[in-house]
Structure formats: structure tokens, C-alpha cells
């Protein structure tokens, strides 16, 4: 039992070391080495890491490329922001408005009452449930409609992208209900606890880090289980899994919903740490950028995804501050380089050199070492692309749709 847990959850020796290093960096090195402003930035990057981790599950293992993870990040973030905004706009502090007690942007847009879908967000319990449930439900609807009809691969990517676009246009267009292009800003307190103070920022950072580690552990358990095996099998030979009697669509829907939920947690933590939420984190561009975090870190590596998110965002901050012109060139080059030369990302490079450094490990033949190898984190071996089970055309199979 203990051993199984050690293997599955921590990914054996190398997986555990990787996780411990990551935890040490998040909880010790960064908080001690950075001032609060920088640490808050790192906290923001770590909320993107949730999305990157979800993409490792979905894309790296599931072979489903979603270009709309921003949808779920945004939904989670907006749910949190709605609660905080309602708390910030109590009748006392909004008494200069025409209608006190409603968020300021509604007042600016001549709304005189709180829209019905804002009402439940007075309750923290409801909000917390909504943060997890709304994106998951949304993902379920999309996933059910698409995977049951065997839409996959490229088509799935394009359609998720369009949904991200639709959501952005809606949020921007419906200013009175959503805060429009500025998003929901001026968030102050959570149940009376001021989230803008220094101590709150530290606490939120640590909560964020702990949640991230927890998400990685849960993902490991899932990937280490039979389900994880099935996912790999589905990615590489979907037809064969189907012919073995599994309902491929159900598994895909599950992993898509899971990824949505993980992204939503990231979104909610983003709102708490950064203090606002806006449509810039929902649309097509952020969604694709989130894919690059996972790709840079290594699409098969949960831990690598976190480093990917940290490094790319750090680079973005540094370059867009000092050489804004160069940044897009670099970002574009990064996309191309990762795809062409390092399909396994940082984790792949690490794995290559780790092997050279630790060549003394002789226990290759033992069965347990083998199995932990295939499931543990940085996976060696060529990455077969997701949507290219050969003969599958563009993701729509030729069989009659049932």
C-alpha cells in the first residue's frame, strides 16, 4: 500500500526528488529570495501553472489540444471576482452611486438592479462551489457535444478557440453585466479580510503554492492509475482502445472536465492575488500562450509545466519591460523551436542530461523500475503527436456517427 502510493503519487524516486525540489523552490527559495512585489508576480505566474498542468493532462497525456483553457481560467477567475466585487460594493461604500449596493460598473452602465445571475454570488459557499462547478459543467457540455461525435484533434482545437473568442466578445460587449474590457476591478476584501495587505499576499501565495502541489499530486495519482494508461493508449491508438470495448468519449470528457477544473482553480487564485479579472485572460491569445507554457516545460511533465510557466512569464516580464520589440520575436521563436527541436520541452532536455549524469543506475531490468519509468514524470522517448493516430485524417473518423 505504502509502496503503491510512493510509486503512483510521488512517481518513484526521481518523481519525488523533482517534486521536493519544486516545493523547496516555491516555499523556501522564492519567498526568501524575492521582495514582496516580485513574489506577488511569481504568485501570478504560478496561477498560470495550474493551466499548464491541466494542459499536460489534457494534451500531453490525453492528446487533446484545447486552445480554450483561458475560458476555464477566466470562468474561475470571474466567479471569484464577482464575489469579491459584491463584497467591495456594499451600500455604505457605494453611496455616491445612483443605485448604491451594486458594483460601480453596473451603475456606470445605467443598471438599477443586480442581474439575477449575480445574486447567488453573495454567498462564499456558493462562490467556492461555482468556481469548481461552472467551468466543469461548461467543459462537460462542450466535451459531451464534441467527443460523443468523435470530433477531435484539429477540429477540437479550432472550436475551443472559437468558444474562447465568443466568450471574450460577450464579456467585452456586455459591459453592464461583466465590467467590459476593464474587467472586474477594485477588489478589496474576502469576508472582511483585506487581500491587499502584505501579510495577505504572503498567505495567498502559500495557499496558491500548496494548491498547486496538491493538484500535481492528484494528477499523478490519476496518471499512475489504469485511467492514465488508458489515456496514453487512447492518444496513440484511439481505434484500438475503442475496439477493446472502452468508451473513448467518456474518458475524454472526464479529462477535459478535470483540466477545466484545475484551470479554474488557477483563475480563482489569480483573482485573489492580482486583485482583478479581465477578458484579456480569457481570449485566444492567452489560451495559446498557456499551451506554450506546457510545451516549453515539457508536455509530458507535470512538474516541467510549472517551470515552463515560470520561465516563459519571467522572460515575458523582463523582455517586455526592457525590449518590448524583441519579445514577440522571441516568443514566436520559442513556439517554433519547442515544436521543431525540443518536442519534450525542458523536461526532455533534463531527462537527456540526467541520464548522462546518473548512468550508474543499473536496475533497468526490474519490472517495478520499468513501470515507474513509463508513468513517472519526465518521460523519455519520442513524443508522438497527439492528433496523429495515422489514418485518422483530421480528427473525424470515417465511421458513421452514432
Amino acid at each position, binding site marked *: 500500500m505504502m509502496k503503491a502510493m510512493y510509486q503512483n503519487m510521488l512517481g518513484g524516486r526521481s518523481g519525488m526528488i523533482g517534486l521536493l525540489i519544486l516545493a523547496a523552490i516555491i516555499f523556501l527559495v522564492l519567498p526568501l529570495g524575492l521582495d514582496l512585489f516580485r513574489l506577488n508576480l511569481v504568485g501570478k505566474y504560478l496561477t498560470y501553472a495550474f493551466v499548464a498542468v491541466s494542459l499536460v493532462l489534457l494534451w500531453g497525456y490525453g492528446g487533446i489540444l484545447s486552445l480554450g483553457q483561458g475560458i476555464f481560467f477566466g470562468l474561475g477567475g470571474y466567479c471569484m471576482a464577482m464575489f469579491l466585487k459584491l463584497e467591495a460594493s456594499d451600500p455604505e461604500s457605494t453611496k455616491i452611486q445612483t443605485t448604491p449596493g451594486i458594483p460601480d460598473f453596473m451603475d456606470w452602465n445605467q443598471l438599477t438592479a443586480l442581474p439575477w445571475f449575480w445574486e447567488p454570488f453573495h454567498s462564499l459557499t456558493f462562490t467556492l462551489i461555482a468556481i469548481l462547478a461552472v467551468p466543469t459543467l461548461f467543459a462537460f457540455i462542450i466535451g459531451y457535444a464534441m467527443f460523443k461525435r468523435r470530433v477531435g484533434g484539429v477540429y477540437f482545437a479550432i472550436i475551443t478557440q472559437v468558444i474562447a473568442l465568443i466568450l471574450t466578445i460577450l464579456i467585452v460587449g456586455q459591459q453592464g453585466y461583466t465590467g467590459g474590457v476593464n474587467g472586474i476591478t477594485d477588489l478589496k476584501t474576502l469576508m472582511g479580510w483585506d487581500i491587499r495587505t502584505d501579510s495577505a499576499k504572503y498567505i495567498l501565495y502559500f495557499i496558491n503554492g500548496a494548491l498547486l502541489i496538491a493538484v500535481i499530486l492528484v494528477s499523478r495519482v490519476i496518471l499512475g492509475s489504469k485511467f492514465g494508461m488508458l489515456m496514453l493508449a487512447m492518444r496513440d491508438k484511439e481505434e484500438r482502445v475503442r475496439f477493446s470495448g472502452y468508451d473513448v468519449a467518456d474518458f475524454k470528457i472526464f479529462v477535459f472536465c478535470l483540466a477545466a477544473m484545475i484551470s479554474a482553480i488557477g483563475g480563482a487564485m489569480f483573482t485573489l492575488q492580482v486583485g482583478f479579472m479581465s477578458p484579456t485572460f480569457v481570449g485566444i491569445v492567452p489560451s495559446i500562450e498557456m499551451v506554450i507554457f506546457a510545451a516549453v516545460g515539457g508536455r509530458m511533465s507535470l512538474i516541467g509545466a510549472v517551470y515552463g510557466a515560470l520561465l516563459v512569464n519571467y522572460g515575458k516580464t523582463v523582455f517586455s519591460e526592457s525590449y518590448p520589440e524583441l519579445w514577440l520575436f522571441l516568443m514566436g521563436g520559442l*513556439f517554433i523551436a519547442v515544436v521543431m527541436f525540443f518536442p519534450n520541452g525542458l523536461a526532455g532536455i533534463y531527462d537527456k542530461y540526467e541520464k548522462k549524469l546518473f548512468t550508474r543506475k543499473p536496475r533497468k531490468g526490474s519490472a517495478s523500475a520499468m513501470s515507474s519509468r513509463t508513468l513517472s514524470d519526465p518521460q523519455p522517448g519520442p513524443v508522438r503527436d497527439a492528433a496523429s493516430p495515422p489514418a485518422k485524417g483530421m480528427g473525424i473518423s470515417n465511421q458513421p456517427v452514432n
Partner: protein
Amino acid sequence: MDGYTTSELWSIFAMQGFSGLSLLSVLLLMALGLAIIFGQMGVINMAHGEFMAIGAYTTVMLSKVALEYGFGNYYFLFAIVASFGVAFLVGYLVELGLIQHLYKRPLDTLLATWGLSLIMQQAFRSTFGAKEVSAELPEWLMGSFKPTETVDIPINGVFVMGLTAVVCLGVFIFLFRSRWGLRVRATTQNRVMAGAVGINTKKVDRVTFALGCGIAGVAGAAFTTIASTGPTTGSLYIVDSFMVVVFGGAASLMGTVLSAFGIAQAQSILQFFMDSSMGKVVTLLVIVTILMLRPEGLFAAKVRR
């Protein structure tokens, strides 16, 4: 829709219809290129919008040169050809350097071409500046004519329509009536067999990709007659054109034409009656819903994959 009389409604439909037709032309030209690249080759070219921008910038540059030397009235026809040529050439090089290594990995192509589009956008910004530039239209393209009192149809829209029709016809002849098209279709249907009967499939890929890019360049030239060009112009159209191709059924030219017509018209007419963002949202939502019910698009080509 109350508050309008029937004749007013007809005028609105006619005028929004025609403004829809200009949008249709650009969208259709973009989508034609994509239909060739995506439908025939299965490559997702996220940088397709930037190829359109290449065409547009080429036209703008040429219009500047033309004004200088005083042949501003005739340059446009030449600019169309030049836009095609430049975009074709860049497309050819991109295929050579990037795309050809990624045919087996469609999702990776998507990411790589997205990266390419970022680089190209920044290149436009560094070269031509962040501000939007517009071409000097020749005189014969300006103005409008009025068939009735309330309807007002711009000439450039009609010209662009004609251009689109010509390009459509050209693509049709190329794909379905020429030797080259035969090779392209053979490669699509069965790459290995096509290779076995002596078709140079690599060369076919290269020319097909470059051709798709070239048509995007023509779309750019057409675009300059209805709006001004900025570094991110192309990215505004990329999602829409993908929708057109997917909705029409990849690999079906007829489907592409019809779906471009439907999408552009729906968008343009809805935008009059709702605000413009809602018009777009409703159009996209309807398309996504239809695609969920009928994933293969309106016209599925019978291709063995």
C-alpha cells in the same frame, strides 16, 4: 425589427447585404487559401492572416510608388499580381523551412505557425510602424452608385466581388481541371500511391502551400480597398476564416463559398439589428452549434483518409 416599414427593411437588407458582400470577398479569399492548405493538405496555418497582411502591405507600398511616378490609376491590377507573388514566395520559403518537417504532427504545426504569426506581426510593426496604413485607391474604384433612392452600393465592393469570383474560378480550374490539380488531389487522397505513380509529392505540397498563401495575398490586396492595414489586421480574420472552412466542410470548394456567403451575410445583417458584438456572438454560436451537430461541415468531401 419593429419600427421599420417593409421597404425600409428591404433597403437595409440590400445595403447590409452589400456591405456583407465586401466582407464576404475578403473572407472568401482568405478561406479559399485556407481551404487549399487545410482542406487539401491538413495543415493548420495560423499565420494565414499574416500572409493576407503581406499582400495588403505590398499593395500599400505599390500605391505609394505608383503615386510618386504618376500611374496611380492603373497600379491596382498590377498590385494584385504582386501581392500574390510576394505571398506565394514567402509561403514557399515557409513550407521549405518549417511546415515540411511537421506534416505528421498537425497540432504542432498549429503551434509553430502561431509562433510564425507572432514573428511576422512584429516584423510588420518594426518595418511599417504600429499605425495603420492605407493604400491610395485609384479614382475608378471610388464612389458608389444608387440603383434606388435608399440603396447605396460602393464600387470598390463590386470590384472586389468580381475579383473574388475570378479567383474562385481560377482555383476551381486549377484544382479540378488542370494537370497540377490532378496531382494535388491525388496526393490528398493517397499520398503513398501518388508517390508510387511518379508524382513528386513533396513538390506538390510546396506549391500547394505556396498557392494557398498567394491567394491570402490577393485577399490582402482586396482588403486594402475596404479598410486600412495594421500589423494585427490578419489576426482579426484568421478565426473567422477557419470557421468558414470548417463550416463549409474542409476540402469542399463549394462548401467554402457557400459558408463564406452565409457567415458574412448573417454577421452583417445581424450587426445592424443588434449591436455589433452580439451579432458576431450569435453568428459564431450558431456555427459552433451546427458544427457540434454536424462535425464534418456542410459539404463533406468524400476523401479516403
